[in-house]
């Protein structure tokens, strides 16, 4: 049972590569957080993603257990399902963020232009 959860049906070499890859990914994420390159909200999301990747590659059988429980007979398909859904949600989230920033920078540009016009008019009034 424990052996089953540790390695599952995945060949050992692939599991080793997946583990190395996930650990590197987690390392990159932790480093980004450490250097404050990520906003807090994203730090948490990506840290959890990295952790999940390491967990799933270390305990490859977990994926089989999950796949069976939702009725997927080919467990890599469950992995793709999770990854694609996650990426889809994340890209929707980024579209929302980009729209928000777009709105904000447009307002900033407008305020900047209106203020500059008023400033120039005031200066002209004082000097001319």
């Amino acid at each position, binding site marked *: 049972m424990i052996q089953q959860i540790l390695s599952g049906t995945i060949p050992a070499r692939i599991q080793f590569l997946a583990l190395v890859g996930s650990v590197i990914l987690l390392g990159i994420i932790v480093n980004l957080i450490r250097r404050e390159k990520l906003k807090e909200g994203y730090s948490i999301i990506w840290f959890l993603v990295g952790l999940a990747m390491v967990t799933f590659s270390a305990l490859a059988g977990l994926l089989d257990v999950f796949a069976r429980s939702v009725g997927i007979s080919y467990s890599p398909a469950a992995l793709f399902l999770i990854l694609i859904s996650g990426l889809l949600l994340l890209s929707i989230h980024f579209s929302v963020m980009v729209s928000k920033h*777009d709105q904000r920078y*447009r307002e900033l*540009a*407008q305020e*900047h*232009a*209106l203020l*500059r*016009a008023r400033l120039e*008019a005031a200066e002209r009034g004082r000097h001319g």
Partner: protein
Amino acid sequence: MRRVCVIMPAFNESASVGRVIETVRDVLPEAHIVVIDDGSTDATARLAERAGAVVVSLPFNLGIGGAVQTGLKYADRGGFDAAVEIDADGQHDPAFAVRLVAALGREADMVIGSRFTAATTYRPGWLRLVGIRTFSFLIKLVTGKRVLDSTSGFRAYNQAALAFLAWRYPADFPEPESIVMLLNAGFKIQEISTVMQTRQAGESVIGRSDFSWRAAYFVLSNAIAILVSGLKEKRSLKHRAA
């Protein structure tokens, strides 16, 4: 006497902007003219200033929606009673601006200078015609109101309408969508007939006759914008307009 602000969005229109301003000053001598220089790389700002307009220069190109909204904010904060939007490229005859402003009143918060309400010599290309008909149909579908020339950028606004649009104005293809916003917020729109000139300079989004992917994209984007705009919550718009 109503204080009128003429809003003129301009992106690289140095060939025509000076002349258009002079014509506006002839027909509306009392009006305050503001040119929104939308990140032009030519002499548009300098020439507009020399012709006697106030110039508000955006730090980079925002596109027509962002530029028009800047002008609406300017007019709203300046305490103007009405605003007229006129293209700097010379396609709108400023002589009609007087009629647009005069038509503002109880039955019209916004007046559109339309190419279609009466017999004019204006002959649009087939794609443009299909597009404009489609927009009309979609606007009717989502608002129940009939607007013939929804892509005309020749418009007059009263104080309430300009304050509303200064608060929120669509960015990319703003003309039809702003109509839907105004109607959904309970504003009234009227169209009066104007004659449009062939553009004196610059380039239209839709070419006059031929099919182009850019024009097809314009039609499709606008159609989607109208439909999406029709889905937006009306309650908050009405609340804001009140």
